């Protein structure tokens, strides 16, 4: 009797320990959210800077009390969109190649390379971008500068590959083999089977990968900072224009900013946060839809 009781007690202690561990994540996300929002909303509540000017301004000159982030939002969105446009097709075809076409050995090599890519610290992507991509852009740019929207897009497109490839590959590989057999038995070729049956069946999983890729691209800071140019003003209108994404704005100045300047950097974080939350909601919805079907 005593032994059973003791055993039960032990189980409960361990269970509670797990619960505490799990709580770390919940508390952290809560703390970060409250902290960023509290500081980020302050300047607008206390009327030390108008929200409208903040959201629509196209100049960021702390010295002249001008804090507009609209051109940063545009930069972030364009860079992300461009990275998705280039990175996603490459990633999906990579995933298709690994899971459907490559022999097991080549598939393993490529998969290994993709996994390594995921592990490379982002600052090294930035260094690579600065050393290889930026000089190349400089050669073809009419603006006599290599740091640009284009360079940012290239770096981000590579950075989202691992996420999109691995999630797409997983969702392609769980497409029931019965679908493939059914398609082959109707005289469809391999490529027809991939495009008409396998990819549509894996659609929601691939979409999840794409959205996580968007999240990665919009949130990336370090690599982008080295190749984007970080101008103090101006909506980018060409691929060769410099951009200043929301993330790098925070990272560049948070170290020394104070007062309203600092608070508005938090506000920049709030905007970024809202973007990320929208993306996460979209992922959740997709995942749910997948389970539902």
């Amino acid at each position, binding site marked *: 009797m005593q032994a059973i009781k003791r055993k039960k007690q032990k189980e409960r202690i361990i269970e509670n320990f797990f619960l505490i561990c799990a709580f770390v994540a919940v508390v952290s996300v809560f703390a970060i959210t409250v902290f960023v929002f509290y500081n980020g909303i302050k300047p607008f509540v206390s009327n030390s800077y108008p929200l409208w000017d903040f959201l629509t301004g196209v100049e960021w000159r702390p010295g002249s009390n001008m804090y507009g982030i609209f051109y940063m939002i545009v930069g972030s969105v364009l860079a992300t969109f461009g990275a998705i446009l280039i990175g996603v097709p490459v990633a999906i075809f990579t995933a298709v190649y690994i899971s459907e076409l490559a022999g097991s050995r080549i598939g393993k090599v490529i998969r290994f390379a993709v996994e390594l890519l995921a592990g490379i610290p982002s600052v090294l992507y930035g260094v690579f971008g600065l050393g290889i991509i930026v000089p190349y852009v400089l050669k073809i740019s009419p603006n006599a500068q290599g740091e640009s929207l284009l360079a940012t897009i290239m770096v981000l497109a590579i950075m989202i590959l691992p996420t999109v490839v691995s999630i797409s590959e997983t969702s392609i590989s769980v497409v029931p083999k019965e679908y493939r*057999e059914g398609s082959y038995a*109707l*005289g469809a*070729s391999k490529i027809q089977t991939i495009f008409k049956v396998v990819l549509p069946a894996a659609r929601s999983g691939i979409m999840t990968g794409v959205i996580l890729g968007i999240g990665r691209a919009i949130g990336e800071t370090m690599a982008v900072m080295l190749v984007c140019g970080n101008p103090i003003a101006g909506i980018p209108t060409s691929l060769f224009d410099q951009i200043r994404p929301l993330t790098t704005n925070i990272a560049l100045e948070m170290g020394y900013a104070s007062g309203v300047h600092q608070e508005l950097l938090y506000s920049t974080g709030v905007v970024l946060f809202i973007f990320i939350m929208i993306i996460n909601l979209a992922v959740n919805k997709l995942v749910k839809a997948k389970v539902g079907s």
Partner: protein
Amino acid sequence: MDAKIKFNTKNLDLFYGDFQALKAINMEIREKEVTAFIGPSGCGKSTFLRCLNRMNDLIDSVKINGEIIFDGQDINGNIDVINLRTRVGMVFQKPNPFPMSIYENIAYGPKCQGQKDKTQLDTLVKESLMKAALWDEVKDRLNKSALGLSGGQQQRLCIARTIAMNPEVILMDEPTSALDPIATAKIEDLMSSLKKDFTIIIVTHSMQQAGRISDKTAFFLMGEVIEFNETPIIFTNPNDKRTEDYITGRFG
């Protein structure tokens, strides 16, 4: 009994890696008959069926020796597999409609062959569904997902999808094993009416089913064809003791 021979296999061996799954199969399958393969699990009957439209190509470790003559041509060699599969269709054990609409499921095969004409596709979809005795049940929901159909309806859809290719042969790999008795009866009825137009080869676990629907029956055991004959003979007066043991339920 002078029907044309559709398939003729000569000394067909099949290996999965080192394991020999089929041993020297010699079999003549006649046109517009229903041929049934029976035998215990793992005896090679499905494997043999899958040789007939080269579905075993999908498995890397498979090695095949011997000939499979289909309409005078050895299909084991370097042939146009896609063309073969349009002529030899297949219905699987588990109904496997694609996750698309009923219409698209039927139109899939013809579209893959380049058929684009909407009116012709419409007609083809309708005819195929009618032949598969499914038209009345689905005519108002052709654009709904095929996955919303019942298991039996899904299987008839898969048959319709195969019919739409207008194949010469339809292979069926235990097509009713995942279905309830009523759905099974519908599919069996369908098979007897399809026999007029198609050569049907069916693998079945149910001896009653083989007895009800087939003209010829082959009994497989451990990768060999023990006996192949007219169905009534197999079931009433088999030559081989092992066939008799299996038929009478002494094993398997």
